[in-house]
């Protein structure tokens, strides 16, 4: 039973929290922040919406989030191996640190939202 105030305020605040999270991811290599921190903020934004509006209508996104996670790991290892292909060691800095930050941010966001969606299936209704 969520009240009118909470529904409205969530709908207004949601894009600002998303924008703040994206800002922290992208500026991670110059100022405090980075992949993990920005990913957690993005996940907080989505989880606020899921908590307020009920988790049942978001269960259909689970296969897409799994797909994003797998793509993230493949891209990460590809960037690492491209360090080997270009003649130097694994994970050498070819100017790819902002790209790694973005991949980690997307992966952390999808991982945390998946964790919440899976755990909320076990919820016990106590009325």
């Amino acid at each position: 039973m969520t009240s009118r105030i909470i529904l409205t305020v969530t709908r207004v605040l949601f894009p600002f929290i998303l924008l703040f999270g994206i800002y922290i991811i992208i500026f991670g290599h110059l100022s405090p922040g980075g992949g993990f921190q920005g990913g957690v903020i993005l996940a907080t934004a989505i989880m606020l919406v899921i908590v307020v509006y009920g988790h049942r209508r978001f269960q259909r996104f689970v296969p897409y989030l799994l797909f994003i996670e797998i793509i993230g790991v493949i891209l990460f290892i590809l960037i690492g191996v491209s360090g080997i292909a270009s003649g130097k060691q694994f994970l050498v800095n070819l100017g790819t640190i902002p790209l790694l930050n973005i991949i980690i941010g997307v992966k952390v966001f999808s991982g945390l939202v998946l964790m919440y969606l899976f755990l909320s299936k076990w919820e016990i209704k106590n009325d």
Partner: protein
Amino acid sequence: MIDHLPIFLIITPLISAIFLAIFSLFAKAEKIQKITAFIGLFLPFFYLTLLYQKLSNGIIEYNIGGWTKPYAITLVIDDLTFTFAFITSIITFLSFIYSIKYMKNKDGKFYFFFLVMVSGLYGIFLTGDIFNLYVFFELTVVSSYILITYGDKKVSLKASFKYLVVGSLASFFFLFAIGLLYIKIGLLNIEYLSIHIHNIDTQTQIVIFSLFLGAIGIKAAIIPFHGWLVSAHSTAPSPISAILSGITVKTGVYIFIRIFALGFTLQNLNEMIMVLGAITALGGVIGALVEWDIKRLLAYHTISQIGFIIVGIGAFSTIGLAGGIYHVVNHAVFKGLLFLCAGAIIYRTGTKDIREHGIGKTMPVTLITYIIAALSISGVTPFNGAVSKSMIESSVYSYPIIWLILVFASIGTVAHFSKILYYSFIKSHKNLQKKKYQEVPLSMQIPMIILAFFCILLGVLPNLWLDNLILPASSSILSGYSVIQIKFLDPLHIIKEWIIVVLGLILLKVIIVRSKEIDKLRKLISKFNLNTCIFIMVTTLIFILIFLKIVN
């Protein structure tokens, strides 16, 4: 491409885990998943054979990220690493083949966590940076928490939770010690630490070593810190138990060798560690007196054999350290074989209590491989346990009390394994008339036969393995290469072994006759829950700290 082999050794199981995850999004993909996992576990063999040629030129080092040596995360392969990685590749590959038929659930998530755990194990053995060791440790241990829950539901969840809390405590102690080392020395590379550690004052060295001993004691299950091991290893599914008892407990021993080789300048360290090892060796055998569950018996004997290894390493002489490392290799092989045999019996009879087995002669391959493994762990001559146990015992001749405790532990080991042999195999149970048990499927027999073959091979040709595998490993820790020759069929050792076997059989008769008083002991031991375990661990750590402060 040969230059980049160290990092490929860690990444290959991870890449095949990712491909497994991709294939799980499609339907009906079990065969491709198993083939992917097979390739991911078989390629490290190939890498290790290539690395062995390269290793004879010197230590292989590899800096991740292109940075220079003291500031980078380095992957170091020397002979000790090669020994542990070699045994890891064998045990995990054979355990995977065993688990194809054993695991009854048909989804691919089990193999995903299996591959991630294997990747973490290679990472622990290969890394040369102490914080990277912590990271790979957490990767391995988190995967094993998940893999344990694939056993029987109720008991394995409780065991996994207990293991989780205790393992996190060990990680926190480890991190405190890393922090103290960092603030005194300034870099995190293990080689750099071992050069500069004598600059630290003695009081801080005492605190650092006690915290390391707490973390290592929990991970390697030395006696005051052992509370998590019996329930975790006995409720896991059998191939996972084989890897956990064979390799994951040995990572604690590996870290112990590395930390001990950093060169703490404290007095009386060797004696304290040997006393802890002797108590562990005896305590594991005493704890197994009351058990009738086959996997709990095997888990208690893991604790006892780790006690032998810690005694051998604590002596820190050439023969002691070589004996300890050889016993690591031998224990992984015969304990893996024992858990696979136990899994075969449970697969066919459905119960873990050995009083209800009574298989008799209907499973011949299991019977023969079990007898080979039981003779190995008891230390009878043509098999591999005899060589390493006699090396460890001959390194403590100058401490007669510790030698006597080790002999008592050997007697108890013989007694318990003949107990399992008698109840599970020889004594026929009434179930045998109701249904006939057949032998387990072929893909479960092959790993057992290969491991039994290794048991015999490691015992009959000890000098081959010593010269090429074990002595280079121990001489990379102790400077100076020395040559040990094992005299095969030495009559004094054979007489000692058979005296131990006879005394063990007498002890078995005592156990069978007096089983009622022993059951009362069981009610005493089974009161230890999570809170008591952690309280005992913290108290022992404080005692170790006080002891070291008094002595120095």
